[in-house]
């Protein structure tokens, strides 16, 4: 019997803005499981806290309550909601990847090296990492003339493709995807779907948010519906 790689139990996230004295509820009472080789899609209206769930799992947000149990490659179980910072950093480098909506990278570095970075952090030799980066940029339809250019000047769609390549290159055991195709054309979206299918076949577990419901129908194996705080979907 296949075990889930991720088991989120009763996760909630609430923001406190001290300057305004406001409490902003986001995700609440979220339960979900993610399995190796399967893609779980988070669905629900804007404001239901879908991104907050992903950021909570990656610990970009501090969870307000709940447990986020991750099964490590070594076979242990780590609660990402409370794990020590160095444990989270090690897992980010080796096992958990996140394709966010925005790309942050060094101003002077070309797209190829931005994509290769996660492999370099793991100690992969430069030439090998660059080679893999080029293959992915090519697969995602990024023209070769852009590979050595820093992405700061790229269009939204080009930046997103660089961001995707960077997220996919390290082939983490768990991949979090926040609207990975939001600003892509249909052809590139098809290519991304193809890549994600390939990752599934290789046993990679994914938790994703998609802008278009038809993409959920196309690629998701499981769906989890979130409702906005204080209301129903």
């Amino acid at each position, binding site marked *: 019997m296949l075990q889930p790689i991720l088991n989120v139990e009763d996760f909630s996230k609430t923001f406190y*803005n*001290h300057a305004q004295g406001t409490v902003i509820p986001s995700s609440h009472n979220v339960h979900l499981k993610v399995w190796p080789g399967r893609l779980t899609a988070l669905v629900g209206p804007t404001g239901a806290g879908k991104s907050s769930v992903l950021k909570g799992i990656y610990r970009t947000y501090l969870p307000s309550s709940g447990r986020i149990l991750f099964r490590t490659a070594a076979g242990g179980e780590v609660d990402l909601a409370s794990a020590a910072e160095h444990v989270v950093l090690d897992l980010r480098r080796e096992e958990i990847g996140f394709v966010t909506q925005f790309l942050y990278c060094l101003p002077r570095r070309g797209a190829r090296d931005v994509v290769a970075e996660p492999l370099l952090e793991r100690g992969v030799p430069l030439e090998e990492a660059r080679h893999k980066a080029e293959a992915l940029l090519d697969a995602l339809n990024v023209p070769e003339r852009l590979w050595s250019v820093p992405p700061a000047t790229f269009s939204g769609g080009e930046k997103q493709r660089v961001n995707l390549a960077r997220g996919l290159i390290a082939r983490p055991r768990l991949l979090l995807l926040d609207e990975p195709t939001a600003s892509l054309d249909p052809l590139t979206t098809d290519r991304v779907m193809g890549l994600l299918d390939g990752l599934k076949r290789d046993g990679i577990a994914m938790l994703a948010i998609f802008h278009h419901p038809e993409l959920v129908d196309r690629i998701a194996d499981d769906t989890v519906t979130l409702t906005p705080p204080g209301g129903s979907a």
Partner: protein
Amino acid sequence: MEKILEVSGLSKIFGKGCAHCIESTGPGFDTNICPHCGSVVAAHDLSFDLHRGEILGIMGESGSGKSTAVKNLYFDQLPSGGTARFFDPDFKDDTAHGRAQWDVFGLNAAERRWLRNHRFGMVYQNPTLGLNFGISAGGNIAERLLMSGLANYGGIRERAIELLRRTEVLTERMDEKPGSFSGGMQQRVQIAKALATQPPLLFLDEVTTGLDLSVQAAILDLILEIQRELHTAMIVVTHDLGVVRLLTSRVLVMKYGRVIESGLTDQILEDPQHPYTQRLVASAL
């Protein structure tokens, strides 16, 4: 990853100090100056650890005490209290000097000098603190190599050329004094000098402050390349949230000599918990 540094309860008070200094200063009192005796509580109860090859950020506004930690660790100041342990990753049993573990705040002058010359490096915001302006750029590097025990002239010159090339300083200018260089170039020479002995632990105090944006970017790039190539652990002191985001994996936020919040860098920048950090992040992004 293994720990390289462990700092516990580091405090630094300027002035004679009194029984009320700690209880009447800090973020809650909006000051780090003791109203009873006028002493300045630059840092109180600073605790953190650092792993090999990791970059830790210390951020805050001027006067928050963010530089105090690195100044004390690099022996530019003596702490008022606290302990720091350095676990030497380059320690070998067969050398006369050195030890596997150092009690950083409990050393005599010779021991401090040995750590500065062999294991720690510092890059200051102000190049005049890190460089000797009376001698050439190459001479500055040679000076550090000599202090670390390398005594062969040819070997020193070769190493200096290699370091300047590495930090993208034109080697044909290595015999010029740093005073004739641009600010960005002086910073590169300072980094080359700090790296001359390949220290496993490097302190960077506001190293990009005051430089043009393009020069800043190049220096940040260089710092990350060094970290990757040499696996150097670093403490980066800065008030610039952009520098924190690009360089560090964890960060401490300081105000009036206290750490008010610490965490993973992306978490501190996207989900700050303390009112002060929330204000800082909101006003910067």
